[in-house]
């Protein structure tokens, strides 16, 4: 009988959980892009959400958070445009209240929509909301066409000051910050991007005592090979790529869209058909199993018809697809 007991214990010990070898998150791995500048449904939106589309009302925030939780999302990435815009991260307080009112479990990551720094700089310096005047990434002091403050004081600092620690998505106890595309056409001295990131890390450590887990879009790494990010992701490029998987630093970030239709964008973009949810399902089939994070575009992106909230057209089809993967491929 003693031998049997020893055998049983040995089997139990051999059944070790491999999770310890992975990066440690404080939320589920599925998350979605989130924007909150809406006062009504944009005219280009094809499918009408079941939530009344007005982010000035608590009902909108509660409805969106409830649907995120229904889909078993662990986090949402707040697509931030910075100070004096309709997507100022300092305006995220209603999201915190909605999270509290719906169980308190949903986490938030900062998504620094990096073209916003170019636009804000040009608005302030030249009085025009344009990308055509490049942002000088080597000019951290802001003496010329750059400035750390556009990224930090007007963006990151406002996010960290607004979103308390317990709401933040963290990897290895470090709050996650995504950064959108780099490009020669928008930035001068892109090889100085790593200096900008180090300055942002230092400022965040100084003011908030945390070291951000920075996940830039992979284009930044091509522009600045000296960059040492914590992970990378690859933004979709319709119709060439509608899902991507990027492994860097031992962290794999998947990115998947449910569909995309932005013919009213400037310039107009290629249309990616939803195929009744099969596009999202195929993308998740391909990227989800290996991913440590899955960034979905987008929970509420009605501007580009890339949303997956409940609508009168498809009901909860897309929420159910995400929920299914979050359950089966955690």
């Amino acid at each position, binding site marked *: *009988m*003693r031998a*049997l*007991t020893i*055998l*049983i*214990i040995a*089997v*139990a*010990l051999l*059944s*070790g*959980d*491999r*999770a310890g070898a992975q990066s440690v998150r404080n939320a*589920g791995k599925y998350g979605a892009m989130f924007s909150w500048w809406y006062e009504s449904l944009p005219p280009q939106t094809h499918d009408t959400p079941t939530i009344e589309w007005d982010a000035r009302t608590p009902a909108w925030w509660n409805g969106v958070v409830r649907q995120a939780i229904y889909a*078993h999302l662990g986090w949402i990435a707040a697509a931030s445009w910075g100070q004096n815009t309709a997507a100022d991260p300092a305006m995220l307080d209603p999201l915190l209240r909605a999270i509290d009112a719906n169980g308190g479990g949903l986490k938030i990551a900062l998504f620094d929509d990096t073209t916003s720094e170019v636009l804000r700089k040009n608005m302030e310096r030249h009085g025009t909301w344009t990308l055509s005047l490049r942002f000088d990434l080597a000019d951290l002091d802001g003496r010329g066409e750059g400035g750390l403050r556009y990224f930090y004081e007007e963006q990151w600092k406002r996010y960290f000051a607004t979103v308390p620690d317990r709401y933040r998505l963290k990897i290895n106890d470090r709050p996650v910050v995504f950064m959108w595309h780099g490009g020669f056409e928008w930035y001068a001295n892109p090889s100085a991007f790593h200096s900008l990131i180090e300055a942002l890390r230092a400022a965040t450590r100084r003011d908030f005592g945390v070291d951000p887990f920075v996940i830039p879009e992979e284009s930044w790494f091509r522009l600045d090979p000296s960059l040492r990010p914590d992970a990378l992701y690859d933004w979709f490029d319709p*119709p060439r790529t509608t899902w991507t*998987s990027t492994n860097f630093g031992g962290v794999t970030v998947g990115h998947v869209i449910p569909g995309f239709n932005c013919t009213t964008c400037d310039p107009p973009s290629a249309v990616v*058909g939803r*195929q009744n949810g*099969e*596009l999202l*399902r*195929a993308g998740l*089939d*391909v990227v989800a*199993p*290996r991913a440590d994070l899955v960034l979905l575009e987008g929970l509420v992106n009605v501007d580009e018809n890339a949303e997956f909230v409940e609508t009168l057209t498809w009901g909860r089809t897309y929420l*159910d697809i995400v929920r*299914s993967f*979050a*359950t*089966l*491929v*955690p």
Partner: protein
Amino acid sequence: MIRFIRCASLVLTISLFCTERAAAQSAYIQGGIVMDARRFSGQPDDRVFDANVSSMMIGGAGFVTALISAGLELDAGRESEVAQTTAVTIAGRPEVVTTTYSSRRRSVSALFGIHSSAAHAVRAGVYAGLAFTAFHQRIATAAPPIVLSAPPPPTEFAHLAATPIVGVDVAVSISRHLALVGAVRAQSLSFGSELSGFSVRPGAAARVMF
């Protein structure tokens, strides 16, 4: 959880060696085959980890009184496999993505039982305890190169959980030391906040009594 298993094993080992000698039976070991009927919550299309697979079971218990036993059971189910396909059009061409979900459950259960009298040839028992379950999942995706240029190796997950387990069995003696047993065990399965369900395991075993 491993510390808990060690403590439970220690208590049960002591109980096995401190059995009531005056009773007709002081201990038994048994082994057999069970059918692991596993069901998880979810939409019908999502039940890729549901299974009906055979499983081997071995166990043993000692009687701490004439009617009450304490013991351990180990059962290791076979791997189940479900393939799902997604048809998607890419660059104007229809393509198929196939995802294969494999899973396997193994449990070590600490069980306390209440038995009918050993004086009869047919002896029933009811059990309750805690099952320490290892649930292994393997997910593999295959698709044409246009969809998946470099197919990744299968992804494996291992969950450990301690959940309640209950059971009943009926042992029919065919000699002084040997009985045939019909048994059912039922346990909940809960892995994190997302995946939950249950496992019901009817089976048959041979029991050697001491």
